[in-house]
């Protein structure tokens, strides 16, 4: 057994079995990724648990009962056609204003995330890499991360060095680091910028909302590799929400869930993503327009 699995086992729910329940083989943990997993005991592993979650906008329900359990170090892909509720799922976890939860719950190691404001969810260890990162004119990356670290009781003086190291890892041109957040950045630069933030903040779980949209293959590879590395280096758990499979060629999923019209209609291992690549969503009663 690898240390990662032991970590899961310590909590009485081995990662392999968790994956197996869904009919998806658990990854061969850290070793398979060519990097040693974090030592068991140093990190007991965390669980992000979504149970019976129903949510939407005031006019209509979009998510009609979602169940997911994601453990540290695991990558779960949620795949679905346009309009299936993927972005709603990403943002309801983070607590976006305007999304209303009507039933169910979300917890991180037993902490009720839905009871927390967005910033405390982030402080609890949740990170959202949004499909369209918001431009914040006049606000620098360093200042935003400095406030986040200060609120976490960390030393904001670390920020420049951490940012420089993360930027260098993913080949993000340092001259972009001085720009206001996401202002005048291309799609790929924005996603690299987000990935730098993920690396500096070091969350327990990252939700990637269509991270592969709007960026070139080089940027996609750099971003996906960094996140993949985080799953072993810092035992990051990843919920990768995506329409296409190309992300999963670099960031390999332990489990794949198919989201259609607000419900998870199938779950399986990585082979499910390959099936979807062949068949599209038609077998799930979705036509090409995604309806």
């Amino acid at each position, binding site marked *: 057994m690898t240390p990662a699995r032991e970590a899961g086992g310590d909590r009485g729910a081995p990662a392999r079995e968790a994956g197996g329940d869904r009919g998806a083989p658990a990854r061969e943990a850290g070793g398979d990724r060519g990097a040693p997993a974090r030592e068991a005991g140093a990190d007991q592993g965390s669980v992000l648990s979504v149970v019976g979650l129903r949510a939407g906008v005031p006019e209509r329900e979009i998510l009609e009962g979602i169940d997911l359990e994601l453990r540290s170090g695991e990558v779960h892909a949620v795949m679905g056609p346009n309009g299936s509720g993927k972005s709603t799922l990403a943002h309801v976890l*983070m607590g*976006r*204003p305007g999304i209303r939860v009507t039933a169910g719950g979300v917890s991180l190691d037993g902490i009720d995330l839905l009871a927390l*404001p*967005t*910033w405390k*969810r*982030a*402080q609890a260890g949740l*990170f*959202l890499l*949004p499909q369209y*990162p*918001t*431009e*914040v*004119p*006049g*606000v620098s990356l360093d*200042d*935003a*991360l400095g*406030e*986040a670290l*200060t*609120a*976490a009781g960390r030393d904001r003086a670390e920020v420049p060095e951490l940012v420089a190291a993360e930027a260098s890892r993913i080949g993000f041109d340092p001259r972009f680091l001085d720009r*206001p*957040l996401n202002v005048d950045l291309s799609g790929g630069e924005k996603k690299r910028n987000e990935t730098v*933030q993920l690396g500096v*903040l070091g969350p327990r779980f990252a939700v990637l909302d269509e991270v592969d949209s709007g960026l070139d293959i080089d940027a996609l590879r750099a971003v996906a590799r960094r996140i993949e590395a985080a799953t072993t280096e810092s035992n990051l758990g990843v919920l990768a929400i995506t329409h296409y499979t190309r992300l999963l060629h670099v960031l390999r999923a332990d489990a794949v869930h198919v989201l259609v019209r607000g419900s998870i209609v199938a779950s399986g291992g990585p082979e499910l993503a390959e099936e979807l690549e062949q068949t599209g969503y038609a077998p799930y009663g979705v036509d090409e327009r995604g309806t």
Partner: protein
Amino acid sequence: MTTPSTEFTADAAAALPGPAWMQQRRADALARFEARALPTEAEEVWRYSRIDELDLSAYRPVVAREAPTGLPAAVTAVADAAGPRSGLLVMRDGRLSHAELRDDLSAKGVVLGSLLQAAPDEGAEVLGAVAGAPDAFVELATAFLGEAAFVRVPSKVELDAPLVVVHWLDTDGGAVFPRTLVQVGESSQAGVIEVAASDDVAGLAAPVVELDVGDAANLAYLGLQQLGSRVWQVAYQASRVGRDASLRSFTAALGGGYARLRTDSRLAGQGGSTQLMAAFFGAGDQMHDFRTLQDHDAPRTTSDLLFKGAVRDRARSVYSGLIRIRHGAHGSNAFQTNRNLVLSEGAHADSVPNLEIEENDVRCSHASTVGPIDEEQRYYLESRGVPPAAADRLIVGGFFGDILDRAPAPGVRARLRQAVNDRLESD
């Protein structure tokens, strides 16, 4: 401090010092003032203002012959905040109190002093040449003008540090009429920082600033308005920009109770350009009121305006601006942008952009926004673990950041940023 005991009478005006031409100008202006009524909010340029609340009889003109001498610590602090300087002129209650100018600049013919002392004869031609008398307050300001601050930079002189002019209000219940005349000669370069500040007094200030930028000259003007919260200001800044000349004017307004600034910039020579910027932030019951005119009166002229402000508590702000492209000003470009952040439910901002174009071959644009802090921006920052109060501080700081970075005096930028932060976080 002097206790004002006089009203706005001909006798009071006649008691003010100066040569015969000045006495005559005062008398004529007073006669015109008395002949015209004070403006009301019914007039378009006073719409949304608080002018109907003004009770002129609550104030008395300050007519003491001598200004208090010596520099109060507060004045020194205000002047020093501007950083390295070429010279300093302090006017108290509209009267000369202190003047210093680097020797090498005096030798080059640079003037920094009182108009009536430095240029007693030609003053008649300089005074009012750019401003004219567009409304009753400018007439009143001329009728009770004590001394005018006079800045002259002769042709082909380049200043490496700004000249600083401080207007300090001392007198409770006083009405003061600070006047600043800036002449930048042909092909010269100069920076002027003007500070309007006061003790914690109730007062009325009706400043008039005249900026005359000669052909191919370059003037950077920074106005810092940090009057006390019980001071009413009705200010007028007029500029004339010559051929191939360039004016960069930046106003930072944080003070005052009701503080109005009318800014008229006339592009009088071909190829001239003017950049007008303002940053303002009102709290409590403050009101900031800006009226602007970008007046293109020559071919191929350019004007670019950016006014950004915030209001919180019960504060109000008005921006009303007009781009006028006169017949003959072909090939001109004019841009006008006003952005407002409304930070409290009880606060309010009005924005009224306007265009008046008499030429075809021109490029004009205007944009204005009024709204609260962007919810998406706040959510994004919160999603990184930034608490809401810190997120708001970042967003508001960022909102002002781009304009403050354009303030002509780099040494003042950090202080303005701090002032914005303090204003945001004060109770």
